[in-house]
């Protein structure tokens, strides 16, 4: 089985005591420790302003343990991408920000959509999943 590890470290001197939170998980298929996520999509694209785009072209299988990584590689701090799912605003990734979420893709409306703001944003994404429904040509 493929073994993919996702680790995070959050550090800050915001508090009276220094904060250092770390976590690591092996990306497994839903509800098992015996089989890791074994499929992946990876992209690095320039996102122009104006339109909203689905981040992932084909719909991954719903209700699984898919994981989505997304980073805004822009360096201008005023640029950001807005992220929505099924028209629900999730948040904004400003220049340099990244996110890592479980992505349910509960149905065709559950796609993750992104919109560039302030100028062309360069983004990088990776989707780890258990399978996708390919779109017929």
């Amino acid at each position, binding site marked *: 089985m493929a073994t993919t590890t996702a680790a995070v470290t959050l550090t800050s001197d915001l508090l009276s005591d220094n904060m250092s939170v770390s976590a690591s998980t092996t990306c497994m298929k839903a509800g098992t420790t015996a089989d890791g996520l074994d499929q992946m999509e990876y992209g690095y694209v320039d996102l122009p302003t104006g339109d909203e785009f689905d981040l992932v072209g084909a719909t991954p299988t719903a209700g699984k343990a898919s994981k989505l990584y997304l980073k805004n590689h822009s360096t201008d701090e005023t640029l950001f991408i807005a992220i929505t*799912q099924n028209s629900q605003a*999730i948040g904004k990734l400003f220049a340099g920000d990244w996110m890592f979420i479980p992505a*349910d893709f509960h149905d065709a409306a559950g796609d993750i959509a992104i919109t560039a703001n302030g100028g062309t944003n360069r983004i990088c994404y990776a989707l780890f999943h258990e399978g996708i429904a390919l779109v017929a040509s």
Partner: protein
Amino acid sequence: MATTTATITLSSTDLLSDELALTTTATLTNAGTATGVTQTTGLARRTTSAASAAAIQAVNLYRAGDYTADGANKVYIKNTSTTVAEFFTVHIDQEQIGRLYAGDWMFMPWVATSGTKAVFTVTIAATWAAGDTWEFDGVTLVAANSTVADIAAQIDGLNYPNWITTYVATEATIIFTARYASSASEVVYATADGTLNTASNGTANISSAAVGSKSESDITIRPSVHTDMTYETILIHQ
């Protein structure tokens, strides 16, 4: 300036033909600036449980109305469970984001789009008597005397489950503001719900009111089982 960083490492030696080794660090700043974020909830840990599967309820982690909308807020959530099949389902408002299985974590931006809080003003007027009562939101006022300003002060001094009050000494009006942003259909609404019982002709009229609107991006998580499940979370925000 405080410095807060978030580092992710994605690695695999056998998923692809080539090794996957991705590491990146973000220094978290306020929206559209280079100024570091300045606020955090700190790390929290909580165990959920319910009497039965039918009694499982979602936990409201963060209410949008409590934070800056459209800010560069970031949310971290981890399911600390070690039981494979146990997961938390994460929602923003009504939209299901995904499931955090045992050991999984997530880190995402949060728009924190809030609604508005309902508000209304009650004016104590006309002739009241000691012992008159006014009931609202399950709380009953018993007038200590007949002075309207004193009665208003008494009303302000009570604690209401769904409302907070604002009062200026010696005046006869009290402003009620809902504790949470919500539409009229979802909370005990005010205008007709005050119940007055007076021996004379005392009044507690609503002199102005505005209906609230529901929050659009509260973050909730729902455990998959009613037995103990534990999560950790932190919100870093503007």
